[in-house]
């Protein structure tokens, strides 16, 4: 999760109140952010992904100041009218169809501020912007741009400009193959025939979103006072919210916001749009969810602590909030404002009957019976390497593989015997006898299943010591079945993992439920086991029925 680093002094100035570290720690946690650590004068806070508006120091301070009651209610931001225009060419529709833009003037920039702005941009890219895919943000020095700007798409060879931190002019294609940032985000454009770009009235290219700005027109310096900001992507409301998060943070730094007219062919929009959206809130729903008896007035004042406005049953939601989808989200904010610590606890008298799953009960019984035979239970992973399931078992059934495992364990096991053989092969330094069992899932392909994979609960038993033999494992099988009140028989069969003539099918009520035998010495050799092993594997679900 992304973190914001707050400087305690700046933060206090923004919040408008001094708090002790102890108070800060407590309040930050109870606001719905995770206090990660305090280092000297720096406070590191983790922001949950639903609150991108808190990813800037300004946004965080704004929410915090409301929450502690210093500056509550809906914040007012003025947008001044302007002549700035961006024309959106139909050519971008196939590649990155939307943009939302703004101008912010009189921002006092210094190196520190520039770093802050870049950080906000990067954090929004990484979270809300889904690594620039959903939303990419560009910030430019206004004085270098001649309006109107055009947002259009063209063949990559025809887009030629010097990218930020690039040494010379490059084509769109070259940027994706040889520029550092270009290579990092190339996957976002590569598959398109045409690439999008912003170009001003002097035919100066501003940037090629979502990749990179131009060095000439797209570099903000300490001398920059006025900024042009654009967000590009696929969903206009997302871009608009993202733009609002940035411009309100810049306004909190002292900037003045100016509107930009966006001309989408016949349709014209104006951004940023900081008009709060509204949502109806039912006080009864609030009280039911929270188990409280809040009056409408109390609800209104709690909402104000979270930065909302409230007018006659309607909640006014700040234009920078991205997370209010349903009135349940308002209920959550009311609960946060009320304080999670203040809710009483109650266990209602609801009579329900506890019930363990039948297979689990049965498995527990199996465990108890086998422990009675002085067997040790082991628990292996459900994932194994392919060679353990195929080559080392003399089998040729192809086990279910994982597409993208980062580790060596990349197949789902289709039998418990490989897991058990692995266990004894890794325990050869330990005392014998090693008589062990495992209860667990195995996996097979089966097209009848919803996912194409069938899962079964199996029991595997292995006896490993100098004098073990078929009789001993058969005794365990018989004793086990007797404990379950079942009569079982063994019918000679063949299985490449077992020694021929010493392997059989386990039959209960004329149903085949498993296999029993002496493990083939060749298998033992493959596992590097130098002690005789006998074993059995049983389908627990078949056994239970």
């Amino acid at each position, binding site marked *: 999760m992304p973190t914001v680093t707050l400087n305690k002094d700046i933060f206090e100035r923004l919040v408008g109140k001094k708090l002790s570290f102890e108070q800060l720690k407590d309040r930050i946690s109870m606001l719905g952010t995770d206090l990660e650590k305090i280092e000297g004068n720096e406070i590191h806070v983790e922001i949950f992904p639903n609150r991108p508006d808190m990813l800037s120091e300004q946004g965080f301070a704004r929410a915090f100041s409301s929450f502690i009651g210093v500056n509550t209610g809906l914040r007012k931001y003025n947008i001044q009218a302007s002549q700035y225009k961006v024309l959106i060419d139909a050519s971008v529709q196939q590649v990155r169809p939307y943009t939302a833009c703004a101008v912010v003037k009189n921002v006092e920039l210094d190196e520190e501020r520039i770093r802050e702005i870049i950080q906000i941009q990067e954090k929004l890219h990484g979270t809300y912007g889904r690594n620039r895919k959903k939303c990419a943000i560009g910030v430019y020095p206004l004085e270098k741009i001649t309006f109107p700007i055009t947002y259009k798409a063209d063949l990559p060879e025809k887009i030629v400009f010097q990218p930020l931190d690039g040494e010379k002019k490059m084509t769109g294609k070259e940027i994706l193959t040889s520029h550092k940032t270009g290579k990092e985000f190339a996957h976002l454009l590569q598959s398109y025939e045409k690439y999008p770009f912003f170009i001003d009235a002097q035919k100066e290219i501003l940037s090629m979103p979502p990749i990179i700005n131009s060095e000439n027109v797209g570099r903000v310096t300490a001398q920059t006072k006025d900024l042009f900001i654009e967000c590009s992507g696929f969903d206009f409301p997302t871009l608009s919210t993202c733009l609002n998060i940035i411009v309100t943070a810049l306004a909190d730094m002292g900037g003045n916001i100016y509107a930009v007219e966006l001309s989408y062919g016949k349709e014209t929009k104006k951004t940023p749009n900081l008009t709060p959206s509204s949502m109806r809130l039912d006080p009864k729903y609030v009280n039911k969810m929270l188990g409280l008896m809040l009056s409408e007035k109390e609800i209104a004042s709690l909402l104000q602590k979270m930065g909302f406005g409230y007018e006659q049953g309607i909640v006014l939601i700040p234009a920078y909030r991205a997370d209010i989808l349903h009135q349940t989200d308002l209920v959550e904010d009311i*609960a946060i404002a009320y304080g999670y610590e203040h809710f009483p606890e109650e266990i209602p008298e609801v009579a329900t009957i506890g019930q*363990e799953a039948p297979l689990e009960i049965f498995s527990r019984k199996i465990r108890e019976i086998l422990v009675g035979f002085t067997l040790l239970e082991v628990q292996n992973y459900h994932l194994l390497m392919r060679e353990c399931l195929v080559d080392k078992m003399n089998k040729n059934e192809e086990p279910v593989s994982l597409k*993208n495992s980062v580790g060596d364990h990349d197949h789902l096991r289709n039998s418990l015997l490989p897991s058990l053989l692995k266990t004894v092969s890794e325990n050869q330094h330990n005392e014998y006898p090693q008589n062990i069992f495992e209860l667990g899932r195995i996996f097979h392909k089966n097209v009848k299943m919803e996912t194409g994979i069938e899962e079964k609960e199996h029991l595997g038993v292995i006896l490993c010591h100098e004098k073990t033999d078929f009789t001993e494992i058969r005794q365990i099988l018989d004793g086990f079945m007797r404990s379950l009140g079942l009569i079982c028989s063994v019918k000679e069969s063949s299985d490449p993992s077992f020694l021929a003539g010493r392997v059989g099918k386990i039959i209960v009520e004329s149903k085949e439920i498993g296999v029993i035998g002496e493990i083939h010495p060749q298998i033992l050799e493959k596992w590097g086991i130098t002690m005789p092993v006998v074993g059995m594997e049983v389908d627990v679900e078949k056994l239970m029925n």
Partner: protein
Amino acid sequence: MDLQNVAAIATKLHPYERIVLPLLKQQNELSAISKTAKMQEIEVMRALQWLENKGIITINTEKKKVISLDQNGSRYQKEGLPEKKFLKALTDSFKGLNIITKKAKLSREEVNACLGLLKSKGSIEIKKEEGVSVKITEKGKKSLAEQTPEEQFLNLSFPLLLDEIKDVKIKLAFEELQKRKNLLNIEEQKTVTVTLTEGGKKFAAMDLGGEVVNRITAGMLKSGSWKEKQFRAYDVEINVPKTYGGKKHFTNEAVEYIKRIWLDMGFQEMTGNFVQSAFWDLDALFVPQDHPAREMQDTFYLDGKAKLPDVWKKVKEVHEAGGTTGSKGWGYVFSQKEAEQILLRTHTTVLSAQTIAKLKKEDLPAKFFAVGKVFRNEALDWKHLFEFYQVEGIVIDPQANLQHLKGYLREFYKKMGFPDVRMRPGYFPYTSPSLEVDVFHPVKKEWVELGGAGIFRPEVVQPLLGFDCPVLAWGQGMARIITEYWKITDIRDLYKNDLKQIREMKAWLK
């Protein structure tokens, strides 16, 4: 040691001790005792150690170096040392080395050693033209007549204790001969001698009585002959070899304990598949389709395409524009393909979604729990596993509210051994309000995060259940609880299946 004590101890003597003890009046050296007792030395040694433990004797172990002759040593003892044989083969005039070697019947190696040795003593003169030739000196002739210290040493009788060599010259000769190949063997010999303590002397003088019995046999009991027997008293204080019973895997003990808590609280168990569709694992829980958690690096995906249940269309509507829930939805076009992906379940919450989808109005209120394995695409290291247990609970109750959630959580964690619980705001895509649950760690004396909780969003409940209803939900990992109980620092040790570890692990005593 008083006499009363003597009597008591006498009954505890092992048969070996009973044989050895009387012999100690005459004999005090281990090998002699074992010869007389007709027992192996190791058996006598055990008896002596037990007697020493009882304070009857003290054992003195002396380590001595014993010198014996090796193959060359025995030969030289008979034939004389090579340097003597070499000298004898010489004359006053120079003779070629080959001739001398032949005459003296020495090996090339021995000859070379002789040349150096005799030259340094001044017994020979060496000339090197057209091969090496040697003649004897006057000094050499003189030494022929004498017995050298080396010869004196060889004439001693072997085996011989090093400490017994007193003569300085002979000692030097020993050190010289020790360097030669296959001449001497030096072994360390342990000599064990025994001294009776003051109390022990009384003991040794005592009549220890006749036959004593070790085992009670079925025969004795049947015939009643036990009545005449004298049973040896055992030393019940000594350690015995380890023995092990069968045992459940220790994580299962913890799982059973946690399940018991839920069952006691009236919850029904949910179980289900590990292999799931992205639909059930994520979409049904309103996790946005572009959520970072769905990316390849966090989740194990499998080949193939899942069949979606009919409810997928309702879920799609809710994702896109909220459906009939009153939500705005995520505002994107829902991808069926994304939902059809097959994966290993990333959380047990998938079981909650499937359970809710099966419920009818008349089943409510209802409570469910699950304890099950979940999977994350991670390489194994000391703090990461790719599969681990998760604990999950839901309460579907039209009257439920946030206060009930707090109540259930406090009760659950109290039973888990954490009476102090704190809830903070949190975030999960499928709950609102969302809570992080901290418990006060009784040993570390600080708040530690243990789980997440919340009320399922209407976007989750309504399409699955058919109507909106509060569903309280919570989940947590189990690793912290298990590793802390068994003081495991490397999380891989949970499933290492080291049989010694499993055998010796203490039981789950909660």
